């Protein structure tokens, strides 16, 4: 910038000197012209003065000639005419000279005065006309007028003798003065011309210097331009300037062309640049941000921290006819003009796609590592047998899900038919995963449930809609494999004996068979799993309750899975809907700690499972309102429903009183699964409640043998 300033000053000085020289030359020429005019005038005057010098002598001679002619009585006409002409010319010339230079020359004034004194004497001579002779017998003699004429001539001749010397001297002095003046003017003209020539030479030198300087500057500018072009061509970021109308300037880096696959940026507005490539809301925010940058009071560092385009996801042509998602980073710097205002905004655009993808991969890897650690920590608290059983069950469930997906489908109805089955299986797996605190599995299943839930809401579904689901299913299966491998390692760590190692490891090798064994295992105590789930639910939902379990160690093998699934579901319902917060319980004069009781015992030929909590109970009215709100029943149907029918709503697929879906409730899948399972085993389920006091579910199951045949 300093170099540019010095250049500007030098240019200004050169231009100023050039102008001054040109003005000086002009003035010299003007003065020269005036002097030349003056010299010309002086020369004319000098010529006139020189001529005038001769006139007094001529006049004197002509007077003498005229007198002699009069005396010899010769013809006087020609002599008179010559005298008259000379006097007239003298008179004219002296008047002209007086007019031109009368005020400047005292000699001329003296000559004029002398002439004016002489003129009255000459006037009668000049004025004479006619014949001066008369013829007589004795010959020609002067007539009376001729005598007067002769006297006048003689008198004039006499005066001429006196005046001619004076006039001649005066006129010579005038000529000398004029000559001096002319010489002086000529000398001045020469000096002026010399000055003019010098000025012209100086001007030429200045022009040459200016030309050289300009050439030098142009060369420097060209070099700078070349360097700028090289920078703009080589730099990996897209650079451009935005003007006050948010339009791109005429220069940009080549990378910008590659980033946006276009090269018509000049005059393109920033909005147009990103239009159709980013969501409208993002674009609007970006435009607002750029407007803010033009504000004088905006602090650049602060503005940088709120840059909405720091990492912009953008859909672009990939140059092969397809589209691709890229991540661009926009950075903005205000270019301040010499007077302090914002002149431009410099934008830099970098393609940070690889960085973002790498960061995502790193984050995923980190999350996976964390999830694995969490999973491992969680698994440490789970009985290996329980874990193996869960993994087998889950794998079997996922195989069932895959089998549901595999069922051929072409129509919306056929696709939709799959959703119910998928939902139930997923919900069951999620319940068990949550019970064992295997949250990485529970979350994945929850995401799958979300997908199914979304599909249910769609007006029409097709095979394309199942693509994300099948990908997620693949991910879940891969995750399960990882968990199983980890379980094997943990098992080996806990008990390095071959027998212990074989437990989980063998399950890894033969999941299908292990699943069958898990479902048929006898004497498996599900109490620890349920207690762990109760603790987790209490923590997650900020509730305080105590779970009392009785008789669960005696659950016959064919019922273990069913009882576990049912209790898990009812426990989740209690934690979410039933048990009130400690404050609410206190306000209702209840004990701070809620009570949930599960009792499994023989009853007649079969078994009875009682699940009871001392929570808020179920309000038939609330059930009816939720059912109407969710379009399960009409308002008229709700009005005509008795309490029993209203209570039966909880067993309807998809029914939930909760609006928001969480890990533990809200989908309306749960109690219908419980009911379906119980009915499938040939059992019954009943519910009794007292709003504000308790809810009790009673499940009656047939003898285990009957259940086995029902399952078979």
């Amino acid at each position, binding site marked *: 910038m300093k170099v540019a300033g010095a250049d500007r000053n030098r240019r200004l000085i050169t231009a100023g000197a050039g102008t001054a020289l040109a003005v000086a030359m002009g003035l010299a020429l003007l003065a020269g012209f005036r002097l030349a005019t003056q010299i010309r005038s002086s020369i004319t005057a000098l010529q006139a003065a020189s001529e005038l010098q001769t006139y007094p002598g001529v006049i004197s001679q002509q007077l003498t000639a005229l007198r002699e002619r009069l005396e010899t009585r010769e013809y006087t006409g020609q002599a008179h005419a010559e005298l008259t002409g000379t006097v007239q010319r003298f008179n004219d010339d002296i008047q002209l000279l007086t007019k031109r230079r009368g005020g400047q020359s005292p000699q001329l004034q003296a000559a004029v005065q002398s002439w004016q004194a002489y003129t009255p004497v000459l006037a009668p001579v000049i004025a004479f006309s006619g014949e001066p002779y008369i013829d007589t017998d004795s010959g020609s003699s002067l007539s009376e007028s001729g005598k007067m004429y002769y006297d006048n001539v003689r008198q004039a001749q006499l005066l001429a003798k006196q005046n001619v010397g004076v006039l001649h001297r005066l006129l010579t002095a005038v000529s000398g003065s004029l000559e001096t003046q002319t010489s002086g003017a000529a000398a001045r003209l020469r000096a002026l011309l010399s000055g003019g020539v010098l000025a012209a030479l100086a001007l030429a030198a200045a022009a040459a210097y200016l030309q050289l300087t300009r050439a030098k500057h142009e060369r420097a500018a060209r070099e700078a331009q070349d360097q700028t072009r090289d920078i703009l061509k080589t730099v990996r970021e897209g650079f451009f300037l935005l003007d006050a109308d948010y339009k791109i300037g005429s220069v940009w880096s080549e990378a910008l062309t590659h980033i946006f696959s276009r090269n018509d940026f000049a005059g393109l507005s920033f909005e147009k640049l990103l239009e159709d490539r980013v969501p409208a809301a993002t674009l609007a925010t970006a435009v607002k941000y750029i407007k803010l940058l033009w504000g004088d009071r905006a602090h650049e560092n602060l503005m940088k921290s709120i840059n909405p385009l720091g990492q912009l996801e953008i859909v672009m042509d*990939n140059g092969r006819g397809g589209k691709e998602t890229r991540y661009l980073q926009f950075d903005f710097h205000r270019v301040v003009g010499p007077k302090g205002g914002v002149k431009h905004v410099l934008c830099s655009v970098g393609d940070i796609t690889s960085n973002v993808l790498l960061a995502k991969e790193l984050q995923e890897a980190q999350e996976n590592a964390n999830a694995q650690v969490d999973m491992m920590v969680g698994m440490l608290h789970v009985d290996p047998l329980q874990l193996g059983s869960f993994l087998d069950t889950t794998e079997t469930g996922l195989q069932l899900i895959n089998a549901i997906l595999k069922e051929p489908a*072409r129509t919306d109805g056929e696709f939709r038919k799959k959703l119910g089955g998928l939902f139930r299986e997923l919900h069951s797996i999620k319940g068990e995963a949550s019970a064992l605190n295997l949250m990485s599995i529970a979350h994945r299943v929850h995401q799958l449930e979300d997908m199914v839930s979304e599909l249910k809401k769609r007006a029409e579904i097709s*095979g394309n809609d199942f693509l994300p689901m099948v*990908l997620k*299913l693949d991910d879940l299966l891969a995750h399960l494999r990882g968990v199983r491998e980890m379980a094997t390692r943990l098992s080996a760590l806990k008990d390095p004996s071959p027998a212990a190692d074989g437990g989980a490891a063998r399950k890894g090798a033969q999941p299908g068979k292990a699943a069958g064994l898990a479902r048929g295992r006898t004497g498996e105590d599900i109490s620890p799993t349920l207690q762990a789930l109760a603790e987790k639910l209490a923590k997650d939902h900020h509730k305080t309750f105590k779970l009392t379990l009785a008789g669960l160690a005696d659950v016959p093998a064919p019922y273990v899975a069913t009882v576990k699934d049912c209790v898990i579901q009812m426990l989740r319902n209690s934690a979410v809907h039933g048990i009130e917060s400690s404050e609410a319980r206190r306000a209702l004069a209840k004990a701070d700690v809620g009570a949930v009781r599960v009792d499994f015992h023989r009853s007649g030929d079969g078994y009875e499972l009682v699940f009871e909590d001392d929570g808020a109970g179920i309000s038939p009215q609330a059930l009816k309102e939720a059912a109407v709100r969710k379009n399960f029943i009409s308002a008229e149907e709700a009005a005509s429903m008795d309490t029993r029918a209203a209570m039966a709503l909880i067993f309807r697929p998809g029914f939930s009183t909760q609006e928001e879906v969480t890990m533990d409730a809200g989908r309306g899948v749960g109690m219908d699964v419980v009911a379906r399972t119980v009915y499938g085993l040939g059992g019954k389920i009943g519910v009794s409640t007292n709003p504000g006091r308790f809810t009790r579910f009673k499940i009656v199951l047939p003898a285990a043998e009957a259940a086995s045949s029902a399952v078979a």
Partner: protein
Amino acid sequence: MLREEELKTFVEGTTNYFEVAAQQPATIGSPYLMEGAPAVHDYTGVISISGKREGVVYFTAPRAMLTVLLMKMQENDFSHETMRDLVGEVANTISGNARRDFGRDFVISVPSVLAGEKPAITQKPGQRSFIIPINWRSHSAKLIVSLT
């Protein structure tokens, strides 16, 4: 893990072929997973992929479906060679779509065609293939994506 966009690229490559060649779009059935090499139909067009992903993608279709497709394309030659060419064309379209969307990330082989044989699939333990039924008119083919 395979991304949804990647799977969609292969699916669209397949369904687009039917739309362009027969002016009748194909739809996809319910996708599912399978370990090992799934059964194939009469003709199979295979592309091998390496680079960011490794494995094979193949389109397998029954003779009856290909015959109707050829008829819709105003073709009178229903020979074995024409059938081979046709599945090769489908595989070519899938390959073109993948090249368009993935560029240099994927190295895609020239399609090969098998008649009645299963392509050689090398899967890692626990790896599954994505089976996507391709329904066109009353017929059904399969697109199998087996990539790691």
